[in-house]
């Protein structure tokens, strides 16, 4: 038997895709720093941190689902409704802890609903989470009827302080998100429950045969996703001192793409929380670039959509390659006939 060379560090740690995206992100950052002097401006760096922090928290939940071959499109709406719930409870004069708990409970409940529909009733996760996205957005609209566009703006100082503290110019929220990401990464790499996510995504039948409870893991992962989205919504509300109907709008697609280019796969069995961080950074830099170079927002949607199509196509080609289709028949370069 031929000797198998020892794999490279990145391949062994399964960080190949992650490092590729990181490379792109760094190149983009460098290019931006050169092209736009405003990039390194402290205001801009602060706003980058503010946009990365909540997205990263949401992406941690989404990446967990990606690992087991699922995803959750309701996260943006969950983020919005949790912020609003917390704001309402605080507005009615309850203590801060109650407000935060109420927001988290909302997110967990929606996550549990998603999890129940997908894990127990086996309904397509895209449709379920999409329907929940609509329903939640509808509820938000109903709650906010008659409210000002800015939504809730008066919060206890202790609450806003939670979102605005910092250490030496670095946003506390950003640090918190990084810490959370690190904890998740350790969980994934060092514990059996963490590894079991990847086992389940890699080969669901075999994983169930070794004793993993697939519905339970799926259910918990959806709850985690809902809970993290709620946490992000609450922290974001504290940070900007506002809870309105626009929070988290369209966020699900950004997070979805961030996870895909950060090393996740729709088919499951791949991904890391480090990758989620890198993917979120990439998308944040891209959005930042659009803003700095004053590209209209509708072009951003075009680029995001194009990236998604590209990633989905590449993902599909890789799956076909893995099943042993040679490049020649894959792209149809070989003429359709093999006769003379």
């Amino acid at each position, binding site marked *: 038997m031929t000797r*198998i060379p020892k794999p490279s560090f990145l391949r062994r740690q399964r960080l190949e895709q992650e490092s590729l995206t990181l490379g792109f992100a760094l190149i983009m950052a460098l290019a931006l720093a050169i092209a736009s002097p405003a990039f390194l401006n402290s205001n801009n760096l602060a706003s980058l941190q503010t946009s990365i922090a909540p997205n990263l928290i949401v992406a941690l939940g989404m990446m967990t689902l990606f690992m087991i071959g699922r995803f959750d499109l309701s996260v943006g709406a969950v983020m919005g409704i949790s912020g609003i719930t917390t704001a309402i409870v605080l507005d009615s004069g309850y203590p801060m802890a109650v407000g935060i708990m109420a927001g988290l409970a909302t997110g967990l409940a929606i996550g549990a609903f998603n999890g129940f529909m997908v894990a127990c009733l086996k309904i397509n996760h895209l449709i379920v989470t999409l329907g929940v996205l609509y329903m939640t957005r509808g509820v938000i609209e109903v709650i906010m009827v008659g409210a000002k566009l800015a939504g809730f703006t008066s919060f206890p100082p202790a609450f806003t302080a939670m979102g605005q503290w910092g250490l030496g110019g670095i946003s506390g929220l950003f640090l918190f998100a990084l810490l959370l990401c690190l904890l998740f990464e350790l969980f994934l790499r060092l514990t059996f429950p963490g590894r079991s996510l990847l*086992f389940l995504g890699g080969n669901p039948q075999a994983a169930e045969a070794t004793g993993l409870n697939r519905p339970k893991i799926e259910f918990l992962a959806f709850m985690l996703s809902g809970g993290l989205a709620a946490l992000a919504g609450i922290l974001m509300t504290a940070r900007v001192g506002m809870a309105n109907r626009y929070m988290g709008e369209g966020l699900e697609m950004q997070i979805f793409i961030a996870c895909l280019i950060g090393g996740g796969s729709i088919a499951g069995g791949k991904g890391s929380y480090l990758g989620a961080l890198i993917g979120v950074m990439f998308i944040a830099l891209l959005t930042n670039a659009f803003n700095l170079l004053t590209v209209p927002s509708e072009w951003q949607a075009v680029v995001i959509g194009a990236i998604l199509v590209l990633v989905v196509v590449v993902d599909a080609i890789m799956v076909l390659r893995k099943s042993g289709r040679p490049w020649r028949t894959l792209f149809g370069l070989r003429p359709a*006939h*093999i006769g003379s």
Partner: protein
Amino acid sequence: MSAETPPILALSGVSKTYGAVRALSGVSFAVGRGEVHAILGENGAGKSTTLKIINGEVDPDQGEVRLSGRLTSTAERAQGDIAMVHQELAVFPNMTVAENIFVGRMPRRGGRIDFARMRARAAELLELFGLQIDPGTILGQLTPGQQQIVEILRAVESDASLLILDEPTSGLNNLEAETLMVLIRRLRASGHTILYVSHRLHEVLAIADHVTVLRDGQFIETLAAAGLCEDDLIRRMVGRNLEPAATTASATLSDAPLALKIEGLTMPGAFTDMALELRRGEILGVFGLEGSGAEDFSQAIFGIVPPVSGRMELLGKPVTDLSPAGLMRRGMAWLHPNRKEAGLYMERSIADNIAAPVLKQLSRFGMVNRRATKARAQEDIRRFAIRVPGPEGLPKQLSGGNQQKVALSACLASQPEVIVLNEPTRGVDVGAKAEMHDAARREAAAGRAVLVFSSDLPELLRLTQRILVMRSRRLAGEVQGTAMTEESVMALAAGNR
């Protein structure tokens, strides 16, 4: 085996019936501690049912299974210390070799996985069995053979008292199979008991201590492997009582025009350099054991999975559009080996099923003539003696044999000149089987060419005039006329020559 220590595994009078098919009847044999025990039999002899019963996946209808003398229930065996490596890989291609070996049993320290110990133990195992693979390699990077070996190591690591290997070498090349033989010998040396199922007779003779032969769901014999040769085994697997093949009137076909000619057809990883010549009026068989590439070859000649190189001539003209639609237009038809997977539409009427391949002939200006469709279905129902209430019945209401007849009549609906039948009688009863064979003979007698891929060797011997045998993804040889016996075909398919 001494009288005091009971055998590690003992079956007595085990029977199992699936629907109308009797899979096992009264099988009894014993496996001694610390031996390599092989189970042999043709396809359908009942090997996999036996293994599933031992492993606690299937409940036997009758009989008992004892482990080390103790009577056990199916549920106990499913939980108990039997480790089975199935034919299909059950591995995690996205995880490392070490993780694949230790899935479900990872060593832990505190709340964490003890990676150092896991790696060390995995390296030890790999080393012990002479594999030079780093435990940190991602499994998906290995060849299927190496993955299979890793899966076996997982079973070894589980410290099961009985290890079942079902066709472990079917996906391996010769070199990998050799490695596996070494591994099995070392396992035996370290005190493991192994139940081994393989089609490759020379392997069985090389490593087994005892061989149990099954035939048609019945226990034939358990014998010591020492001193046996391949012919001894083949004779027992095939049985002496078989009637000589009812050779079809084999007119000299050599002047009949060529219907299908294939040269140098190759698909990397699936089969290499395949060739065949099929004449009008001929029924030609292709036989290969699992993993021989026969299935891939069959799919390739109908363009389901496109081959990479080679030449194909259909009815004297080169094939220019190698797709199912293109070939059907040129007069070819292909019966899928698994009617549950393809060939039928369970929720559509029988009439629709039979009309599916010939919608064009049945319609004018793109509109289907429903009366003609129904009439055609009624005619086929009569012709193939399909037991249905009427052309509006649904296939899912039918028995396996009748479903297969619907699938066949759909296949023949386009009146093809070249007919490829894959496993035409898999899982059907004796009566339906005879009717399927009659249908194939009728087609050949009408001057059409029939190519039969079947793993049911007696069927091929009865039905065909010539058999091509595949082994290790190549053509191993051809037998015809009086030389066509189960022994000669099996020698080509399983031999090491």
